[in-house]
């Protein structure tokens, strides 16, 4: 049943021009950022060689591009997922879903999986660009894999948060605005100056992945927040069914 919901979600997102346009815009933006980073790198490369710097293309091109990809995904995921449940509520299709032999958990997980899969092409294309770049230089595949994992965790979290906000009302744009608000608040928490708040910063937990590390505390942070947002969305559906 989760697969059925996920397939429908994916099919719905990419059956309209807006889904493809959003994906194309994200890809163009990321390609432009990659080439901009590459141009800077090519300009400073002779000086780096002269001072025997250990910094290479992975640090100066790939890591910043992945960080840019993270920001693009923070914008893209709420845009694609804002109507996921809000549209069902607005169009009264939720009645069909709730009257079918489908649990609230299956519904939310199916929607989440569909959104995750819809955003996956961005990660695949970013990685494809990085691998293409690596053909002309040496790239650490472990570092690339860690970067891909970081982006996947980010999509998982952003999708769960968007789903939760989308379950709260019938207005997709409201859900997108709330999702952007929360995700960017988490992103910029490390700029607050408070060490305590900084521990919860999305940016602080994501950056190590782009440097080739997979910190267990960051893994736990992403998984905990993702599961909490999914649990809230499931609870909301349960409330819609009349659960107290």
């Amino acid at each position, binding site marked *: 049943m989760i697969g059925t919901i996920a397939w*429908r979600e994916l099919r*719905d997102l990419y059956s309209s021009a807006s889904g493809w346009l959003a994906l194309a815009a994200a890809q163009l933006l990321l390609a432009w950022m990659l080439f901009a980073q590459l141009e800077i790198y090519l300009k400073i490369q002779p000086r780096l060689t002269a001072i025997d710097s250990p910094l290479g293309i992975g640090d100066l091109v790939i890591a910043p591009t992945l960080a840019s990809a993270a920001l693009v995904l923070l914008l893209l995921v709420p845009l694609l997922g804002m109507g996921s449940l809000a549209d069902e509520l607005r*169009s009264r*299709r939720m*009645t*069909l879903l709730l*009257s079918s*032999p489908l649990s609230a958990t299956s519904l939310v997980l199916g929607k989440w999986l569909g959104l995750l899969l819809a955003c996956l092409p961005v990660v695949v294309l970013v990685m494809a660009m990085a691998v293409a770049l690596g053909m002309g230089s040496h790239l650490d595949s472990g570092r690339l894999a860690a970067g891909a994992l970081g982006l996947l965790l980010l999509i998982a979290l952003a999708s769960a948060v968007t789903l939760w906000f989308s379950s709260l009302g019938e207005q997709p744009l409201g859900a997108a605005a709330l999702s952007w608000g929360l995700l960017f608040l988490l992103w910029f928490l490390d700029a607050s100056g408070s060490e305590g708040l900084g521990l919860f910063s999305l940016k602080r937990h994501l950056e190590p992945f782009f440097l080739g590390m997979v910190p267990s505390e960051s893994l736990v942070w992403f998984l905990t927040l993702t599961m909490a947002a999914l649990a809230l969305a499931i609870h909301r559906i349960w409330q819609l*069914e*009349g659960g107290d």
Partner: protein
Amino acid sequence: MIQERDILLQASGLGRRDGRTQRLEGLDLVLRRGQVLGLLGVNGAGKSTTLALLSGALRPTSGRVEILGIDLHRHPRRAKRHLGLLPERPPLYPNLTVDENLDFAARLRGMKGRAARSARERIKRQLDLAAFGARLCGRLSKGMAQRVGIAQALVHEPQVVILDEPTAGLDPAQARELRTLIGDIRSRCGVLLATHILRDVEELCEEVLILRDGRLAAHERLHERNRIRIHLLRPPEKETLERLPGVAGVRSQGGGWFELALDDAPAELAREIALHDWGLDAYVPRRHDIESLVGILVGIDEEAA
């Protein structure tokens, strides 16, 4: 004779309270195979709440619902497989084709792969949708979208079909077509029909439940075997008619018209009328007239009126 196995949907003491608002209270109903049961009520009477409770989209705060003897709220997945629902607005995904919407509905009800595809093709043939499989649902006319909505509700061959205002917003030809369709499907299932349109009730329903302020205001049988209207050319006093054997009640409607409730078959009454030479001019086995339903709907006591 009605057998226990013919009962498809049964609600007892069904109620829903949201905070201080009692949306529905103590509703009992039984839907049998081959029956079209009407559910009437003005806006805010509790119709939507009733349908949500009966379809499992909302949990009751009191009472229970059984579909084919399966408790809907204890075993929702088992019970809901036997249920087909057409909400007031057909629940279609406009970006998906008719085929994709029907596939999705079949899979939602637990059908898989080839079974879902063959069910889709069967229902398309039945509802004359075969030529529209590749059409995007967002581009269908209202009547056609309603037809696809019904196909969605029936694709898994449910035993219990719940239709909410199925003819609302359709032109007269489309509405007639849809009524014919509902008449056709009734033989293999039970249909609960919520509507504002009295024509639907008149043509399709044997019984109606009328809700008012979240309570059952009336349970009317539309084909009353023992209620008749007669017109007498030389009418006696109402009291004389009341004293006739087999007559349980009389209402004088003026101009020689009477409405009679009978204990026995009408043959005995016909003999009495002939014997007294009251001139039986018209004899109408009485169908519960639709105006009296309107009276009950809006809360006007028929007798008082």
